[in-house]
C-alpha cells in the first residue's frame, strides 16, 4: 500500500534471543478477573489458560486429554472421566475428582455467574473415587466436550477456596497450569512465572508478563521499541510499519469472530422483504471492505459457522456475493426503485474497524439507492439496546464462538430466540436446530446444522460479511502461531 512513509530503523530493538527467558505480551485490555466463571472475555481466558488446565483440550480433530486422561459416554446423559494422576495445584495440593465437582457444579448452579448459561446443562458431577467421576447432564448434551474445553472450564482447587475463601483465591489464584501467579496490577500487568512442578512438559519461560495497553499506537510503539515481545490486536494501519521494522513482524490468523448485519423481519420494516435483504447483501462488497480497512486480512463468508467448528458448512465459507446491478434490480422489484431509507446501528470501537466498516457499508448501499442512516453507539449503550432487542432495521455485530460448535452460533436464529430481535421464523430451521441440539450422533448432527446454514444463507436473517483475523505484532526472534481461539498459550511461543 501507499502509506509506508516510515523508515525501517524505527525503534532500535534487538531480536529476541535464546537466553532471554522472559516474555512480555501486550494486550489491548486488562484481564477482568481470576474468577474463571465470572467473565466472558476471550482476552482474559487467553491469560488464564497458562495457569489453569481444562479436563480436555481441543485438538486437531476431536479432543485431546489434559487433566482428564480418558473419558467415555456412559449413556446419553452421562459422561465418565478419569483424571491424570499426580497433578498438583500450585499450592501443592493434589488434584482430585472433588475439585472437578466443586468447579463444575459451582458454575452449573450459580446463576449469577456470567458463564452459568454455558454450563447449566450439567446436572451434577458424581465423584467415584479420587481420580474418577461422572458428569451427568439434564438433557443429552452432544457438545459437552466443547463446553469443557473452553472459557471457564479450568479446574479450581476446592480445598484452597473452601478454606481460604474466594477473596483469597482472587487475590492469589492457584491452578494446575504451567505458570504460577505472581502479581496482578490492575490496568497495568499480570505476571506469571514458571511452575517447576508442572505435570506436563516443563515451562519454557521463567517469567511472562501480560501488559494491558489500551491505546493502539502505544501498544505498537512498545513493540517497536522492544518494550513488549508480542502485541495483540495490531491495528491495520501499523502493519506496514511493524513489517518494515527490522526486528518485528506481523502474525495473523483467523478467529472465531464473524462480522454480520442482523436484519429485522418484523412487519413494517422494509427488511422484512427477502428481496430487500438480498439486495443489501449483493450491494456490499465485503472483500473490498477487507482490502481497504484490514489490509486484506480476514475471510469473506456466508455462514457464521466457520471451519474448525463442529457443524461448519465449508461450502459457504470463503464465498461472498456482490452484484450491485442485481441489487438495484431487486430493489426495484421490491418497489423501492426511487430509494429506500434504512437505519443501521453499529458499535463504535468494539470490533476491529467497526465504525469504518459501517461507513463503507453506508457508501456501498448508497450506490444502489439505499439511504442508510447510521447510528453509532458506544458499547454499553449498544449492549443496552442489544439486550432490550430494540434496534431498528439492522445492526452490525461480530459474534464469536468459544464453544466451537454450531449450536451456539445458530441458537439465536431459532424462532424463540429471534423473537423481538429479527423475528426470523422458519419452522424448518427451528426443527433442524431443535433436533441437532440433543442429537448424540455427531455426523448426523453436523448435517442438520449444515442444512440450517444453507437456508439461513438464502433467507438472510443475518447477512454475513467476513470472518475477522487476529493480527499480532511479534518480535522476529519468536515463533508464534496465532490460534483460532485466540488463546495465548505461552509455551507454544518459542525462541527461534
Amino acid at each position, binding site marked *: 500500500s501507499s502509506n509506508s512513509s516510515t523508515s525501517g530503523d*524505527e525503534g532500535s530493538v534487538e531480536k529476541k534471543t535464546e537466553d532471554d527467558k522472559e516474555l512480555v505480551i501486550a494486550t489491548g485490555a486488562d484481564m477482568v478477573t481470576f474468577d474463571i466463571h465470572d467473565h466472558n472475555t476471550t482476552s482474559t481466558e487467553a491469560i488464564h489458560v497458562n495457569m489453569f488446565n481444562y479436563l480436555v483440550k481441543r485438538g486437531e480433530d476431536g479432543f485431546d486429554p489434559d487433566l482428564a486422561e480418558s473419558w467415555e459416554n456412559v449413556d446419553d446423559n452421562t459422561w465418565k472421566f478419569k483424571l491424570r494422576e499426580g497433578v498438583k495445584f500450585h499450592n501443592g495440593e493434589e488434584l482430585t475428582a472433588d475439585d472437578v465437582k466443586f468447579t463444575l457444579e459451582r458454575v452449573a448452579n450459580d*446463576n449469577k455467574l456470567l458463564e452459568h448459561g454455558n454450563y447449566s446443562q450439567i446436572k451434577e458431577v458424581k465423584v467415584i473415587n479420587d481420580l474418577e467421576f461422572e458428569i451427568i447432564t439434564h438433557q443429552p448434551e452432544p457438545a459437552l466436550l466443547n463446553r469443557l474445553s473452553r472459557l471457564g472450564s479450568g479446574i479450581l482447587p476446592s480445598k484452597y477456596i473452601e478454606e481460604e475463601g474466594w477473596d483469597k483465591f482472587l487475590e492469589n489464584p492457584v491452578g494446575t497450569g504451567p505458570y504460577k501467579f505472581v502479581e496482578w496490577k490492575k490496568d497495568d500487568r499480570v505476571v506469571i512465572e514458571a511452575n517447576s512442578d508442572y505435570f506436563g512438559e516443563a515451562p519454557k519461560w521463567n517469567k511472562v508478563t501480560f501488559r494491558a*495497553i489500551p491505546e493502539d499506537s502505544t501498544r505498537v510503539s512498545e513493540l517497536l*521499541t522492544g518494550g513488549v515481545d508480542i502485541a495483540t490486536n495490531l491495528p491495520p494501519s501499523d502493519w506496514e510499519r511493524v513489517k518494515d521494522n527490522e526486528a518485528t513482524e506481523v502474525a495473523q490468523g483467523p478467529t472465531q469472530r464473524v462480522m454480520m448485519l442482523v436484519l429485522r423481519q418484523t412487519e413494517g420494516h422494509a427488511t422484512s422483504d427477502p428481496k430487500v435483504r438480498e439486495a443489501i447483501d449483493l450491494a456490499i462488497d465485503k472483500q473490498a471492505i477487507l482490502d481497504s480497512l484490514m489490509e486484506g486480512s480476514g475471510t469473506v463468508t456466508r455462514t457464521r459457522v466457520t471451519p474448525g467448528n463442529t457443524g461448519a458448512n465449508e461450502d459457504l465459507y470463503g464465498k461472498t456475493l456482490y452484484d450491485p446491478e442485481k441489487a438495484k434490480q431487486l430493489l426495484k422489484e421490491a418497489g423501492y426503485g426511487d430509494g429506500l431509507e434504512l437505519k443501521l446501528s453499529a458499535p463504535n470501537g468494539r470490533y476491529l474497524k467497526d465504525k469504518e466498516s459501517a461507513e463503507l457499508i453506508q457508501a456501498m448501499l448508497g450506490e444502489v439507492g439505499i439511504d442508510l442512516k447510521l447510528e453509532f453507539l458506544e*458499547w*454499553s449503550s449498544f449492549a443496552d439496546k*442489544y439486550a432490550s432487542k430494540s434496534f431498528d432495521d439492522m445492526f452490525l455485530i461480530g459474534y464469536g464462538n468459544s464453544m466451537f460448535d454450531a449450536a451456539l452460533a445458530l441458537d439465536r436464529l431459532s424462532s424463540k430466540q429471534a423473537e423481538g430481535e429479527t423475528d426470523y421464523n422458519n419452522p424448518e430451521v427451528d426443527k433442524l436446530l431443535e433436533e441437532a441440539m440433543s442429537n448424540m450422533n455427531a455426523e448426523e448432527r453436523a448435517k442438520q446444522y449444515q442444512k440450517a446454514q444453507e437456508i439461513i444463507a438464502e433467507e438472510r436473517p443475518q447477512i454475513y460479511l467476513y470472518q475477522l483475523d487476529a493480527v499480532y505484532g511479534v518480535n522476529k526472534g519468536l515463533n508464534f502461531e496465532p490460534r483460532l481461539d485466540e488463546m495465548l498459550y505461552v509455551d507454544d511461543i518459542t525462541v527461534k
Partner: protein
Amino acid sequence: MKFLIKNILRIIPVLFIISLIVFLLVRVTGDPVSLMLPETATDAERAQLRESLGLNDPLYIQYFTYLGDLITGDFGESFRYNQPALGLVLERLPASFGLAFASMLVATLISIPLGILSAIKRNSFIDLFITGGAVLGKAMPNFWLGIMLILLFSVQLNIFPVSGTGSLMHFVLPAITLGTAIAAEMTRLIRSSMLEILGQEYIRTARSKGLLEAVVVNKHGFRNALIPVVTIMALQTATLIGGTLITETVFSWPGMGQLLIQAVNLRDMAVVQAATFIIALLVIISNLLADLAYRYLDPRIKYD
C-alpha cells in the same frame, strides 16, 4: 487551626451537593442491570437483580439509602471486580496522584520562568514567542501530544520508555503530556499577574532603592505574582485530574483515570461513584491546601 476546621465544615454542604449530582448522574440516567447480567438472563432474573439493588424504590428513598451508605464509606461493590469500589479506587489513587504531582511539577518548572520572562520582555519577540507557545500548548489535545511524544522520544530517539510505570523515566512523557496544557495556562497567568504586579507602586519603590532589576522582579515581583497563581493552580487540579483520564489511557498508566473510563464504559456505577467522589474530595482538599498556601504567601490574609 480554626481556619482549617471552618473550611472543613464548609466542605460538608459541597460534598452533599456532589453526592446529589453523582447520584443523579448515575441513577437517573442508566439502568446497570442489562450490563451486569449475561445476555442470556431471563426477565425474572433481571427483575430480581433490580429488586436486590433497590432500583425499584422511589428515587428519593434510593438517594437516602445511598447517602447512608456513603457516610459509612460504602460505595457498593464493583461488579466488574467483585470488590468494594472504594478499595479499588484507593488502590489506584497513588498512581494517579503521582502522575498529577509530576505534571504539576513540570507545569511549574516550565511556566514560572517563561511567564516571568515574557512579562519583563513584554511585547518583545520573546514575549510573542512564549505567548504563541503557550497558546499552542493549550491548543494541543492531550492524547495527540502524548502519542507524538511517544513517537518522537521513545520510538525515534529511544530516550524514554513508551508506557507503563516502574521507574522515574516512566514519569517523564506522561507528565509532560499532562503538564503542557497546565503550563500553558499558568504561563499566561503568571505573565499577566506579573505584568500587573510590575506596574504596582511598590515595584517603583523597590527600583528607587537601587535594587538590581533581577531582585526587583524575582523578589518583589514574583512573590506577589505567586499569590493569584497559587489559587489558579488549585483550580487546575480538577483539569489535571480530568486530564489523567486521557493521559493514563495513552500511556497505560494504572491509575484512577483508566479505572474510571472502563467503569463508565461497563457501567460499573459503584466504581464511577466512588471515583467521582474521591476525585471531588481530592480537588476540594487541594483547594484547601491552596487556601493555606495563600495565607502563607499573603500576610494580608494571615493577620486579618
